[in-house]
């Protein structure tokens, strides 16, 4: 280990010695190569996601081999313990939610009630259990694909000469999960950034709509521009518009003291009703459809692979946004000011910080992130905006920010979990006839269990480390 680190250090210092232009060129070259092979990288990622149980077992095997050099099981246990510790609680919360959700599925099974009503209690319970297993298998496969199918698809593609097509079909689940998580990540980051600054941004839903609408308008208004200009322009326009929409609430708070909870809720209504008018009125493309024109293909967020894999660059943008948010919050002066204002605005003011400016800035950035959720949906998936676009991402985002403890990494994790559940819901409904609402119940239970770690700790009899409660970031509420 130590040798490796020295080697790495040497490597780093050598790079540091390069002239800055050389660094720039090499970074650009690296990025270029990544973009060129991005299709294959994403395919690899999706296959890895689909095969995760096998990869985990493989990893454990490798670890087992390595551990023989370090003293066997005790070392491995410790290593695993440190790596997995932060994951234990969420994993158990998900498990508990799935078990409770399973009871709900069994209790709402009509076929089972009919059998029980006819006096066949055993058969009824058996039926309910069978349907539960079917539902969860469908949920899993809808969200993460079937490892067996992926393996056979790889085999058929590589040896059977059928090319990529079977693999595409097999990794549709993982792809759907990641695609579904994109708006969740952006919106979750938006709310989390607000929380860190002591602001409760309930207006993410409206900001998503504004970002979506503006990016689509830009996307179809300049059909002659090349994609390399039009796409960034549409993204930036959507993000800026949503940012300004959000900043209005920040400005109201800074200038008049109007509480952002109230103003952002009201701005939601304003943007919903305005967009209804715009979509069924001036911007309606075909009468009676309440839908805008499609953006030109140059403004599409490119997809990595062919149908039915819908993975688009929005996912990469979302990860970059998470990294940028983390950097902003924890590595910059602005971020420090935001966090200080969030912890104690009076102390921040006393310390010479401009609290009003920080509120406006935080709401601007929060709106901007939420707007990107709409932009990624509009330019990545629907390519237009229609009545009924709102899907509650902005409200789920509040839960995601809490779930992720307002930490960008946590938000990404929580969003992917929600994406997985949501992607599996359609398969569950079509195969087992279980309504998608069950997934919402599971999502809600996950949030409840994570918000109240004491329940999980009591149920599974984990030791209380006493450090959980301190991490919970809570927005300063009314009258702050």
């Amino acid at each position, binding site marked *: 280990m130590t040798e490796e680190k020295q080697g790495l250090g040497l490597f780093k210092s050598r790079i540091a010695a390069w002239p800055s232009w050389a660094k720039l060129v090499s970074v650009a070259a690296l990025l270029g190569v990544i973009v060129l092979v991005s299709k294959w990288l994403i395919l690899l990622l999706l296959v890895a996601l689909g095969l995760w149980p096998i990869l985990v077992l493989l990893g454990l095997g490798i670890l087992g081999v390595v551990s023989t050099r370090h003293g066997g099981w005790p070392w491995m246990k410790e290593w695993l313990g440190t790596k997995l510790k932060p994951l234990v609680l969420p994993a*158990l919360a998900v498990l508990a939610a799935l078990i409770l959700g399973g009871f709900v599925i069994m209790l709402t099974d009509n076929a089972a009630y009919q059998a029980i009503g006819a006096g066949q209690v055993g058969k009824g319970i058996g039926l309910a259990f069978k349907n539960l297993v079917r539902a969860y298998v469908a949920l*899993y496969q809808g969200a993460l694909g079937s490892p*067996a199918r992926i393996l056979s698809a790889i085999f058929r593609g590589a040896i059977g000469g059928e090319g990529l097509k079977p693999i595409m*079909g097999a990794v*549709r689940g993982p792809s759907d999960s990641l695609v579904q998580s994109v708006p969740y990540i952006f919106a979750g980051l938006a709310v989390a950034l607000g929380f860190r600054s002591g602001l409760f941004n309930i207006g993410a839903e409206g900001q998503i709509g504004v970002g979506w609408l503006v990016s689509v308008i830009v996307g179809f208004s300049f059909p002659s521009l090349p994609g390399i200009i039009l796409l960034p322009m549409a993204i930036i326009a959507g993000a800026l518009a949503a940012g300004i929409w959000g900043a209005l609430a920040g400005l109201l708070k800074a200038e008049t003291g109007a509480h952002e909870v109230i103003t952002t809720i009201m701005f939601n209504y304003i943007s919903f009703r305005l967009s209804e008018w715009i979509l069924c009125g001036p911007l309606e493309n075909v009468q*009676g*459809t309440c839908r805008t024109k499609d953006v030109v293909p140059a403004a599409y967020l490119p997809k990595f692979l062919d149908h039915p894999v819908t993975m688009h660059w929005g996912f990469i943008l979302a990860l970059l946004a998470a990294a940028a948010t983390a950097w902003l919050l924890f590595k910059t002066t602005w971020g420090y000011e935001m966090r200080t204002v969030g912890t104690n605005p009076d102390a921040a003011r006393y310390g010479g910080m401009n609290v009003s400016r920080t509120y406006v800035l935080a709401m601007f950035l929060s709106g901007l992130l939420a707007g990107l959720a709409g932009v990624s949906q509009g330019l990545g998936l629907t390519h*237009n905006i229609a009545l009924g676009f709102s899907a509650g991402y902005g409200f789920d985002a509040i839960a995601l920010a809490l779930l992720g403890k307002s930490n960008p990494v946590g938000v990404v994790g929580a969003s992917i979990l929600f994406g997985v559940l949501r992607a599996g819901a359609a398969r569950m409904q079509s195969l087992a006839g279980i309504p*998608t609402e069950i997934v919402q119940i599971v999502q809600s239970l996950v949030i409840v269990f994570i918000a109240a770690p004491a329940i999980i700790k009591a149920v599974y009899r984990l030791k209380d480390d006493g450090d959980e409660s301190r991490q919970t970031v809570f927005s300063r509420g009314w009258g702050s």
Partner: protein
Amino acid sequence: MRKYTLISILLVALVLLSGCGPALPEGCEKGDLKVGMVSDVGGIDDASFNENTWAGLERADEELAVCAKFIESQAQADYEKNITEFAEQDYDLIITVGFLLGDATAKMAEQYPDVNFGIIDFAYDPPIPNVAGIVFNVDEASFPIGYLAAGMAVEQDSDDPQVGYVGGMQIPPVEQFIVAYEAGVNYYNEQHGTDVKFKGVYVGDFEAPDQGKIQGNSLIDEGADVIMGCGGKTGNGGLAAAKERGKLGIGVDVDQYNTLPNEKDILITSTMKRLDNAVYSVIESLINDEFPGGGLYIGALANGGVGLAPYHDVDVPEDLQQEVSDILNAVEAGELDTGW
């Protein structure tokens, strides 16, 4: 230690879960025709469009060798994904409900040329070879009902008989009703030498019962004797006004005697648009290798796609009933112009 045990159990369970695959959807048998329905954001229990369509799929599931499933869309971005879900599971026919899915259906139909699609209330121009538009000649039912309404208005108030309508948005599917109603009223005047007036308003909204009620009341103030609701909840508001003022009403889309418990006793009949029958017929046509891909399935009087609801509590004179049923036959035979 305990937590590692738990986690490993969870892992093993997941590996096992992901290994075994469900071959067929629940309640389906091998060889069944697989039919999927993708709802719009209204959901499957909207007491309207989606619910009525699903009723047709359910009937096909029970009576034919068909396995019917649905997916409810939660957002605009879900439409393509949900259609893909069915198409990738090798469904034979995918029914998409309403104009909101027009875009997504066209894109996916191109992606899956071997899958058949049916879309409610939508016709593509140019047509797509594997998509059947499911549309309705509601004017065939509206024309005789306009005649009936005129006759009832004369019954009520022979000095100044008037028929009024409360419409939703002024879009072709709604205008189709109104135009034929008016033609029916005029035909009554021709036949009987009367002067029944026909007037009404488009409120511009399908979800405004209060607006509909206000407009219904002002039509009654002007002398309307029969109110025809035509436009979702807005039209129902017009019927509510008729009920309050002791006038008669005519329902729309389904037999509203069953869906409007408060106004049911003033309903003469309803102009029915049988989404369930239409969907059932389309499924049947696919089984018989007569699927109207690239064309239209037209719900008409002849195939039960549109029709009159039965008379319920309002007494309709025998001779008027006879005249209406004669007109129905004439329209079905193409001998009368409905004005649409």
